[in-house]
């Protein structure tokens, strides 16, 4: 098995890229081609650039992202499945000075934890939620997610997701953008360099609104799961572009300025 030391430059090699100090050098448990690594890097780079890692608390979720805390050099707490936004609410209220973020998959945030997620967002909790949408339950072996596309085959929809039986994929960013407490809501994708660069900006903005005290910061990241899609990483990237983005349109759905954030505090001013 590759160890972190194997990745350091050998004699005659030059270091041209390095992890930032908010991520440690542990080899992750994620599958080849999985986008969690990119998402981790974006979040850690933003925390590093903002200079807030020392006062950051990560609320981990359940799913493939359960062990997120193994890779981030920040204080962390484990939340039960779906409850990360409620746990983050408790952390936020107990530690008003901290930077608090959750990192949740689609099952965690958009199925079992919908209630906790929407209500934390609606209260305008000053937290940031990073939402990984890969249209499938990864950790449990490829079952249907709330975001699974109609027609997509999973281990619990072996003939493809049937709209009349299972409904259609939930577009969580659009729902989040409707809530008054949400200061920022965007959907990005990790399938191409261009999209990754846009995603970095969105992650940064989702933390900016927390630091500015404007409200709930939310960013959805369309991600590949080659293992449970039964594809090569390259084909998985293509699937995001051809199948997912048409159903989950990219873009910033909400970004309140300071003036607008103050205005929505007035009762009756939607």
């Amino acid at each position, binding site marked *: 098995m590759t160890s972190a030391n194997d990745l350091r430059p050998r004699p005659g090699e030059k270091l041209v890229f390095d992890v930032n100090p908010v991520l440690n050098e542990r080899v992750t448990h994620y599958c080849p081609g999985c986008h969690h690594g990119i998402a981790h890097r974006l979040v850690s780079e933003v925390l590093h650039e903002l200079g807030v*890692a*020392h*006062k*950051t*608390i990560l*609320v*981990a979720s359940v799913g493939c992202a*359960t062990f997120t*805390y193994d890779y*981030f*050099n*920040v*204080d*962390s*707490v*484990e*939340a*039960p499945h779906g*409850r990360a936004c*409620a*746990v*983050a*609410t*408790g*952390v*936020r*209220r*107990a*530690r008003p*000075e*901290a*930077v608090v973020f959750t990192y949740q998959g689609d099952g965690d945030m958009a199925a079992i934890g919908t*209630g*906790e997620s929407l*209500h934390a967002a609606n*209260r305008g909790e000053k937290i940031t939620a990073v939402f990984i949408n890969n249209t499938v339950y990864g950790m449990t072996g490829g079952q249907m997610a709330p975001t699974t596309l109609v027609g997509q085959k999973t281990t619990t929809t072996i003939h493809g997701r049937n709209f009349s039986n299972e409904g259609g994929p939930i577009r969580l960013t659009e729902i989040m953008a409707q809530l008054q407490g949400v200061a920022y809501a965007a959907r990005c994708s990790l399938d191409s360099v261009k999209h990754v660069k846009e995603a970095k900006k969105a992650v940064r903005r989702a933390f900016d609104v927390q630091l500015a005290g404007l409200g709930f910061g939310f960013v959805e990241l369309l991600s590949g799961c080659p293992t449970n899609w039964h594809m090569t990483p390259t084909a998985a990237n293509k699937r995001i572009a051809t199948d997912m983005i048409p159903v989950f349109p990219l873009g910033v759905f909400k970004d309140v300025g300071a003036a607008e954030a103050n205005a929505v505090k007035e009762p009756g001013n939607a």
Partner: protein
Amino acid sequence: MSRKQMPKRILVKGNEALAYGAVDAGLQCYFAYPITPQNEVPEMLSALLPEHGGAFVQAESEVGAVNMLLGAGACGVLAMTSSSSCGISLMQEGISYMAGSHIPGVIVNMSRGGPGLGDIGPSQGDYFQAVKGGGHGDHRNLVLAPSTAQECYDFMFMAFALAFAYRNPVMILGDAIVGQIKEPIRRTAPEGASTPEHLRSLVQDLRIEGYGARGENAPPRLLKSVYLAEGALAQRNRLLQQKYAAMRKDARYAGEELDDAELVVVAFGSIGRITSSAIRGLRKEGRKIGLFRPITLYPFPGEALRIHARGRRILVIEQNIGQMVEDVRLAVGGCDVAWHGIMPGLFIGANELVEPILQALKG
């Protein structure tokens, strides 16, 4: 202290006494979802707690509330939630995670009649759920059973002290009677009560705060309950069991007229108090009856009960279909233990307990 120097008494419901006790003990964060018969607690704390610099959040559900408690408890602050039976059932997942992660917190259950939606009358049907852990896995909560409004106030201090001493969830188990009864209490901290600063210092090596609070290059901290490596979960459970064994020294009970008693009646909470009235009346008639009222339901004061039970008849009175009686039988071993149950939802008077007590006295 002379009576004149004593602080003035205030007339409050048991639920209000809980809220005052929590604030006076140093409560910093409170999360709850409304449910009868404990609504005075969130209503009062929504006003009181912010006045004292604390945080109040009305959660979207009991699931939300208990996980907010988990988050605040992980930060090492004095945090609490309150609910009643059905709501406490919803909290069991979070309570199990808190126990598994060594997270302190106080959970108040002013219980209702069950099963299901039941009613909002008095019941002690949640005894098993409270003292046997309640959630999944081998975990235990410390459980305190107040019988008066004054105890509702005083036990809040004890609950926080135990939660932080053991880094464990503590449950206060009451019912509609003790929650709704209005009676005078003295709003002063019980003797020897710990300061909130002291309690917080007990968990300073195990709270999340941002590593910067511990130094520029301090290693990050993690509070969790998942242990997948071979043998790791076994080790975690051994650690928890050591903690539960250590709790035994904190078992507490209140005894009345036990020295010469021929019959020892075991009853807790509201029913313990009503039983006490019945026993006092029978004592006036010269009947030698005593009361053993567990204050901690977990750890159960079994050692003390065994001593008091020696050579005496035992009667358990509880408002359920037979729950605490199992712990009493385990504690006293060979003794003959009689049981009198009161169906959930009924309001009973002391006079209704006279006959079953006399019957047990005769044997």
